[in-house]
């Protein structure tokens, strides 16, 4: 009895996919966080973005059949690599995209290299993906920690914010952001007046904010993420920090976080992103379609979703050029060879280490009275050109380039 039940369970898991390769049939797997922390910055919105890319591409290339799957890695590296293995081995998936959560992304990059498929990271932050852990099968699209630190640090110092105090989440990610940003601030003539490290998932930031306030620094850098960032911004508003003349700089902030805070609380916050829905006509048109299909009130598309769209599109173009998706390494080489061009990020390129290059923007959150329509969140304070936005090739320590 037990055995029968178990066998049926088996049959059901592995009746997963029987792909048939006719002309050119491509399967794209969106591996993302559908249910927890990153579900709003990626999740269902990313899946939709990939489907939109597939639809757009098939309009121009009726001979290529694109299918898009989604999977939820639940922020577990083992679940993620398990899904990736199954997708590659029996599901007929050729490319995995998105993968928020650096820990899972690093695991997926490894699986993808072993199976010689393609991995396009849009969700993960770790700049190691194109640094020491770079791979000929990986493209890192939207953003990374180096770019966040550099973009925010440099642009703010240049616009006058030359004294800093850091609120740092006390683990590797926060430390890295703080270290990189401090280096940039100091290199550009700014000064770091102090820092305080708070544990992950802290509810009450008032003690830390008081320290930041009494440091008299012009800029308070938030080297944290998610709920911690939201809590610190909310309570900074309560203590009147922005009104008192200090500026908050978020080192990892997404449009969905601003949505969660509301403008009255978030106003004046400065941070870097590589895409914003209201940036230009093409982005606005895309967002309109996204909204129509997403059909969820109160959601905004994030740069990660834009990255999924653009990444999928460019991958499909490379496959069409090669007329084959069999050899992942060859497809990535082709992706690097072809310049990128899409409605969301414009023209750009993918560097030898797998880094996608595009401009980044320093945004400031508008005051409520400046916001004219729903989702009108940001004004652009500075544009960082593509060749300055990301870490120089030689500094990354990627074995593909140095070796």
């Amino acid at each position, binding site marked *: 009895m037990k055995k029968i039940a178990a066998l049926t369970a088996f049959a059901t898991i592995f009746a997963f996919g029987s792909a048939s390769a006719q002309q050119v049939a491509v399967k794209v797997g969106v591996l993302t966080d559908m*249910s*927890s922390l990153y579900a709003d910055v990626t999740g269902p919105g990313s899946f939709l973005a990939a489907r939109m890319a597939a639809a757009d591409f098939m309009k121009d290339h009726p001979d290529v059949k694109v299918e898009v799957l989604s999977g939820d890695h639940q922020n577990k590296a083992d679940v993620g690599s398990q899904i990736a293995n199954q997708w590659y081995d029996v599901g007929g998936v050729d490319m995995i995209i998105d993968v928020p959560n650096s820990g899972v992304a690093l695991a997926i990059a490894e699986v993808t290299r072993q199976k010689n498929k393609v991995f396009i990271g849009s969700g993960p932050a770790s700049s190691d993906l194109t640094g020491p852990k770079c791979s000929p099968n990986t493209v890192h699209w939207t953003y990374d920690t180096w770019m966040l630190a550099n973009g925010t640090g440099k642009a703010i110092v240049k616009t006058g914010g030359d004294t800093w105090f850091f609120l740092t989440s006390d683990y590797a990610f926060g430390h890295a952001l703080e270290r990189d940003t401090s280096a940039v601030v100091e290199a550009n003539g700014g000064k770091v007046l102090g820092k305080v490290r*708070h*544990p992950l998932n802290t509810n009450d930031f*008032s003690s830390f904010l008081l320290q930041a306030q009494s440091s008299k620094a012009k800029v308070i850098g938030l080297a944290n993420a998610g709920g911690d960032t939201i*809590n610190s911004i909310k309570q900074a508003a*309560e*203590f009147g920090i922005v009104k008192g003349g200090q500026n908050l700089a978020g080192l990892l902030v997404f449009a969905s976080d601003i*949505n969660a*805070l509301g403008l009255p609380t978030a106003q004046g916050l400065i941070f870097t992103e590589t895409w914003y829905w209201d940036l230009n006509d093409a982005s606005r048109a895309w967002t309109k379609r996204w909204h129509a299909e997403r059909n969820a009130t109160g959601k905004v598309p994030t740069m990660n979703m834009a990255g999924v769209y653009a990444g999928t599109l460019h991958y499909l173009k490379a496959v069409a050029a090669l007329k084959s998706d069999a050899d992942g390494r060859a497809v990535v080489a082709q992706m690097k060879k072809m310049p990128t061009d899409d409605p969301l990020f414009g023209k750009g390129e993918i560097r030898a280490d797998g880094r996608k290059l595009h401009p980044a923007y320093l945004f400031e959150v508008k005051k409520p009275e400046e916001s004219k329509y729903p989702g009108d969140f940001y004004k652009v304070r500075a544009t960082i050109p593509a060749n300055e936005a990301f870490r120089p090739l030689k500094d990354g320590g990627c074995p593909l380039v140095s070796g």
Partner: protein
Amino acid sequence: MFEIFGIPSQALFGQLLIGLINGSFYALLSLGLAVIFGMLNIINFSHGAQYMMGAFAAYLLLAHTGLNYWFALVLAPLVVGAFGIAVERLLLRWIYRLDHLYGLLLTFGLALIIEGVTRNYYGSAGLPYAMPEALRGGQNLGFMFLPNYRAWVIVASLTVCLATWFVIERTRLGAYLRAATENPTLVNAFGINVPMMITLTYGFGVALAAFAGVMAAPIYNVSPQMGSELIIVVFAVVVIGGMGSILGAILTGFGLGVIEGLTKVFFPEASNTVIFVIMAIVLLVRPAGLFGRRV
């Protein structure tokens, strides 16, 4: 200005006050747990989820009906309390005769359901909730800037905590409650509807959690996961205090808030583990908890 252990005294007083605010939340939540445990013998794992429901109820009331913070402060606990009553009637009452651990497992499952459903409908990033107009701004106390809202949190939660203590320890209704905890059959024989009392007690405990949730909405991130981390800390608070005494739960809550606040000054990296460390020490020295009877 003088210094204590190298920390300016004004920072120290500031932190003490801020610690009390943290403590307000611990006190409200551990009080709710203690009330429920006293009557139902169940440790309510969904307490954190119900605290989150309170905050969400406040958001929904504002977004859909335009009812502001002050209405929410009354309505959200009522709505969530009613939900609690439904939970007790439909689920919990089937397991009173079983080992207490089943209560823990059942409410844990319930917490997962509540959190999962909320996340599916409202996402994980959280929802905005603006500070009520009347409580914006703050006072300069000389040694620190105290936002008005913080002062209000301390006052409100102290009031609610003490009122609860008063009702349970000093009124006739409270006497019935305590008697029913000791010997339900006997109290039932006196013509008092004990099952009804149990139901209402659970509803009340849940309402306390929701009340804390509304208080948290303007200052903490209103997100589906806001309760799940907090509840583990509150469990530690409850272990330290022991659940035998209402006043004990309140005092421990405020006290640990202060200690946590001070840790943020002297050793910020440890501020989220300090309560667990204190728990370990208390278990070594006084296994029954500070105010607890040996169970």
